[in-house]
């Protein structure tokens, strides 16, 4: 271990805590810090808080679930992005590189098209994401090539484009007054509808995926070397790649199913985390998770407060992400050539 990971980790925690406080207190119904503390304290100790019932309900019923969902989705996308960037040895990769988002999108718009309930739509999105990545993996592995990584990425791009065409077709066929707005809203990403019943189906897959990735943290360092080098160091790259892709896809699909398509988080946050604690996955994965949670909390708070109507998350993350990406390209030329 070189420099300590503590300062970087502390900054990530500070962002998360700032995000939590901001998200709980700011909004159409402002909540004071004192009220927030007494309600949370009362919840922990089991006593009744001496605040207005409306305040308690805003904190626990309205904002609480949404805040938990935002933190989980942000953490999930950041962890998946970190894993994929390492696996594909490319810092410009995001979690939807293998078609998880496109698959989830097609699943969701089909669910909306057939006027299914929200639970069914989420299940369709989740399964769609998993199926898309599985298809990409099977097709990519069937093509025998010297560079399996490159083939996988190209297959992901191609399959993603096909799924995108499918989404376009369903939107074209959809009822323009009832279904199309719902589809558009879902495709742009939002946590406005997040409630308590969403938390378990979100938390389960995210926790499993993240646990697998964190358990494999040292091997993931080695996996970021060229294929033959990793194998000569004693790593069975084939099975390990399946495990990493499966774990990262599980977290991505679960978050897309809950929140719709939210781009950029999985691309931007791993870089911020890497600049805080360096590239070693043992410290990078937890830092990215904490930072990703805080980042999406801030974005989601902006989404529901800056304008009269809610701004879709996908639009805000793009507004923040695009300048960041350009800065990244410019600074990469400085350090990586």
């Amino acid at each position, binding site marked *: 271990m*070189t420099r300590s990971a503590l300062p970087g980790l502390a900054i990530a925690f500070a962002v998360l805590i700032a995000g939590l406080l901001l998200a709980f207190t700011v909004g159409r119904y402002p909540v004071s810090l004192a009220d927030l503390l007494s309600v949370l304290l009362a919840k922990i100790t089991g006593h009744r808080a001496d605040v207005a019932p409306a305040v308690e309900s805003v904190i626990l019923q309205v904002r609480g679930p949404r805040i938990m969902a935002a933190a989980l989705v942000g953490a999930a996308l950041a962890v998946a992005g970190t894993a994929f960037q390492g696996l594909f040895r490319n810092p410009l990769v995001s979690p939807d590189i293998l078609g998880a988002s496109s698959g989830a999108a097609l699943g969701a718009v089909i669910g909306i098209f057939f006027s299914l309930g929200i639970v069914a739509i989420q299940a369709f999105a989740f399964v769609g994401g998993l199926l898309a990545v599985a298809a990409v993996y099977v097709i990519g592995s069937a093509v025998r090539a010297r560079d399996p990584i490159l083939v996988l990425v190209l297959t992901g791009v191609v399959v993603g484009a096909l799924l995108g065409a499918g989404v376009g077709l369903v939107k074209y066929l959809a009822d323009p007054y009832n279904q199309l707005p719902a589809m558009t809203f879902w495709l742009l990403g939002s946590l406005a509808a997040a409630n308590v019943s969403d938390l378990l189906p979100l938390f389960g897959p995210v926790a499993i995926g993240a646990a697998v990735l964190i358990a494999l943290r*040292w091997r993931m360092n080695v996996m970021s070397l060229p294929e033959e080098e990793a194998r000569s160091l004693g790593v069975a790259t084939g099975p390990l790649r399946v495990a990493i892709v499966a774990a990262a896809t599980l977290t991505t699909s679960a978050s897309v199913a809950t929140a719709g398509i939210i781009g950029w988080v999985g691309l931007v946050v791993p870089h911020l985390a890497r600049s805080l604690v360096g590239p070693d996955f043992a410290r990078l994965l937890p830092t990215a998770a904490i930072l990703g949670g805080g980042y999406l909390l801030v974005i989601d708070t902006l989404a529901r407060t800056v304008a009269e109507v809610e701004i879709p998350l996908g639009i805000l993350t793009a507004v923040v992400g695009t300048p960041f990406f350009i800065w990244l390209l410019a600074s990469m030329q400085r350090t*990586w050539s």
Partner: protein
Amino acid sequence: MNIEGHDLSIGYPDRMVGRGLNVALSTGEVLALLGPNGGGKTTLLKTLLGLLKPKAGEVRLGDKPLDSYSIRERARVIAYVPQVHISTFAFTVETVVLMGRTAHGNLFSRPSAQDRAVAQAVLERFGIAALANRPYTMISGGERQLVLLARALAQEPQFIVLDEPTASLDFGNQGKVMNEIRALAKSGHGVLFTTHDPNHALRAADRAYLLRDGARIADGPVATVLNQEQLEALYHATVERLTDSDSGAVAFLPG
């Protein structure tokens, strides 16, 4: 212990590169692999490392076939030093060297205190302990080559296989790496390296194996195999032989 290739046909799924190759390497000796570009040096190297399956014939390691070893068992016997490259992520030199300890841990383990001690020892052996905390992306090409050598040694292997270890190095660092290769043989390792410079083979190797168009031209002790005639046959080019009048040392010039 020996690595032996018996009657190997080598190549890729879609392409045959060479046939009828017999190679052997023992611990404590250095074998240099020479030949023109596209002649099959790297393919043979990867086949002996177990990274490519032979299309015919068999590679044996000790008294067992190489493919009866697991990837992890293999990495504890044979280490590979690839050509120097720039990695995507700015791992520290120490982390890069610690990656050499991967095969000594299990699927979920992180480097132990003992792994760190081994990494520290190999860094000191190559005189680069001061670089331990520097990012691998921010050191010179010569330093990177030494870091990759240190990583290979951290595997505690019996054999070390190097792909053109001098290709991207300046004159001084080329000499340094040649010396380190000699030192590795002295400490009981079997070393196999490819090179474009017969003089490097003369300096560092005990035996040379000459490969052209996937076929063996000659192999044997460097002093007998590396002569003007063989080199001209190997490269299809004229070669000039120089002899130092005092020491009798020999060197070759192309053209």
